[in-house]
């Protein structure tokens, strides 16, 4: 049940067949044809080394950082990165904006916990069951929703997710309804009788999250640099043109959705095991679907690092606001006096305002940075280069 099995399966999917099809159809065309936003320049060795160093540092982090709170924030960031990156595959690369991704998140979460709590099946098997369930559901949803285009697809995806949420609320015998599922204890993970971890601390969740992030980023990278990725982006740019080129819309849209759903369910399972409590409102809500989309939009859709940046912006911001750190920081730094009316207003209300800030962030990003933070900075640096030339 290690993740490497999954990676080799993914690699196999991307390498062979599409090459044949595309070379037949695009006679004379260069098979490394570039589409907009596809960063297909070769990987510089500097980039490789930097990434490896960062990954190594992340792996060593728990040895040096004792604060459980810091680990907690990192785990949340990891879960958010996985959520955003998986959505990115369907929304960013294939251009199908699903605002109902909470369905897959919730399916992963519920499957894992139901199997663990009610059938005593350890989560390392449960997670796979969750992924399978998410895949099945994705294919069903795809067959219903992919007939629709643009805004209609968005609405259909929302409707489907809502049906799941209400069903989870009502099918009490399976899901415990509104009361939700609370985990008592995760069984210790043993290999050949030696206990690797008993999940008492946050560290195993940290590492699991880190590994999931690496899986998702690898998947995104593989997609971006493969023929599959070309097809996805072709569909995003112009569905009808892609179809006329012989790209099977049904096959590729559903593939994108399937991959996206599986990875999202991973995030859901991890969330459920880590937080220890799920109910329909937390893991199947429209609010969750919207925040999944937000992570990508804020960072920059259709890029590998967009969701990472989005998560890095949203998680600390949300946490800082909720726990009133911003208010306290402003006061302790002397910018705002604690006695003044404004100061009082801040301490009282800023923590409630984090959703408001979300909303403002969304509006600002859409109006002024529609390509996300990444796109914004890229445009800036492009301008700079233009000027120096």
């Amino acid at each position, binding site marked *: 049940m290690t993740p490497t099995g999954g990676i080799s399966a993914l690699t196999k999917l991307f390498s062979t067949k599409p090459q044949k099809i595309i070379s037949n159809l695009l006679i004379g065309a260069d098979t490394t044809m570039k589409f907009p936003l596809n960063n297909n320049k070769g990987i510089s060795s500097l980039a490789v080394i930097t990434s490896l160093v960062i990954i190594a540092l992340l792996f060593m982090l728990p040895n040096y950082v004792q*604060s*459980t*709170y810091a680990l*907690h924030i990192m785990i949340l960031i990891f879960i958010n990165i996985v959520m955003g990156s998986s959505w990115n595959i369907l929304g960013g690369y294939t251009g199908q904006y699903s605002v109902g991704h909470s369905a897959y998140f919730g399916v992963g979460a519920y499957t894992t916990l139901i199997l663990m709590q009610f059938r005593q099946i350890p989560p390392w098997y449960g997670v796979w069951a969750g992924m399978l369930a998410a895949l099945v559901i994705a294919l069903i949803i795809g067959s219903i929703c992919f007939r629709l285009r643009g805004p209609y697809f968005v609405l259909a995806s929302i409707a489907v997710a809502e049906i799941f949420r*209400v069903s989870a*609320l*009502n099918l*009490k015998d399976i899901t415990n*309804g*509104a*009361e*939700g599922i*609370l985990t*008592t204890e995760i069984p210790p993970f043993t290999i050949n009788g030696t206990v690797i971890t008993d999940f*008492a601390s946050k560290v195993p969740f940290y590492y699991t999250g880190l590994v999931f992030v690496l899986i998702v980023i690898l998947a995104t990278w593989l997609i971006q640099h493969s023929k599959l990725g070309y097809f996805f982006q072709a569909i995003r740019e112009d569905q009808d043109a892609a179809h006329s080129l012989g790209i099977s819309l049904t096959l590729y849209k559903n593939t994108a959705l399937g991959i996206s759903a599986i990875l999202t369910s991973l995030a859901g399972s991890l969330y459920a095991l880590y*937080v*220890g*409590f799920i*109910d329909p*409102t*937390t893991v199947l809500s429209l609010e969750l679907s919207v925040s999944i989309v937000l992570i990508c939009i804020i960072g920059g859709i259709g890029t590998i690092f967009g969701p990472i940046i989005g998560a890095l912006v949203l998680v600390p911001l949300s946490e800082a606001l*909720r*726990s009133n750190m911003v208010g306290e920081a402003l006061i302790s730094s002397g910018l705002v006096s604690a006695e003044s009316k404004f100061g009082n207003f801040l301490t009282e209300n800023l*923590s*409630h305002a984090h959703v408001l800030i979300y909303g403002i962030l969304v509006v600002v990003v859409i109006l002024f940075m529609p390509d996300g933070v990444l796109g914004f900075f890229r445009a800036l640096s492009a301008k700079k280069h233009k000027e120096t030339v």
Partner: protein
Amino acid sequence: MYKKIAATALILGLAIPGISQAAKVKIGFVNSITGPEAPIGENLSNGVTLALEDLKKRGIEVDLVKEDDTGKPEKSMAAFEKMATRDKVSGVVGPYTSATANAVAKLAEKYKTPLLIPVASKDEITRQHLKWTYRLSATTYDYATILLDMATSLGKPKTMAIINENTDFGTSGAKSAKAYAAKKGIIVVAEESYAKGSPDYRGTLSKIKSKNPDLVFMVSYVADAILLMRQSREIGITPQAFLGAGAGFATVAFAKEQDISNNVFSSTQWTGDVNWPGARDFDKRYKAKFGKEPSYHAATAYESMIIMAETAAKAGGDREKIRAALKSGKWNGIMGEVKFLDYEGYTNQNHHQMLVEQIQNGVHQTVYPPKYVSKKPVYPFPGWKK
């Protein structure tokens, strides 16, 4: 010589605890400050505020760590964890709502931090053999028993319809009502669990009306309570009694809607005119300070904070000592006698005496059990005024 006198006086002064120094304790408070239950959460916050004042007068300084869980269990869990590990509080009071309380009860066990739940009624919370969780309020089972005991003492109801919100609290309440009805030989003829937020219950209510139940048992928070009653009046449901399981039915906002609230019963953990020590005084002080009536939530929060802070002060902030003291202690305050017992499968549960109120002319009156009565109950339901 004066130096000697001064020195002796100083030593004596320091030796007698409480005279020159206040005991300091650090207590955490998780609450629904914002979110859908904020109106009730406000009662809890205010109760705690009054408690802190009183504790100060008794020489106990409480360093309060407040966290808002917005009514969501994952937030209350995060808040509890922060309080237990980063802020290193001696104990935690809260949260409000069954869902959040159930979630943090597990964490209390994990972090070995005493948790005193003022008011969250889901049965299961104290049925899990947890050593570090204590609950002050009675459970949903008690809500059901007191209401049905009262109904059967005032009349001979044979059938009952249950309407409940499909949340933790609502589902638990419905379960308890059904179980106890079976014991009392009352047949449940309809069970409707609704998702809150719907503007129209008329179809559901007419279904219930057609079954002609003797009792209508409702578990809702405020807004739905008002809508349900308004539409019951429209449809013309006239059972022997409307039984509200606390929450929305116990609030002043509901009582004020006299057209629809008159003669509705509500189970409650506390009323302003009950004769427990200090209860009436608390009621007056609360009204004077905050300009509104306290709900039972305020009283439970007040008493919980008093108990936790006093115990923490005596135990010098040591968590294990606090736990042991909570287990063995006895209190008698505005919530009546409090003792955390293990009984009938419950652990550390205060076997609290529930009360029943009836709204008469816009005011909640205590009508049951007989020894607490301030006004006689009106039974059966006299019908709707036109």
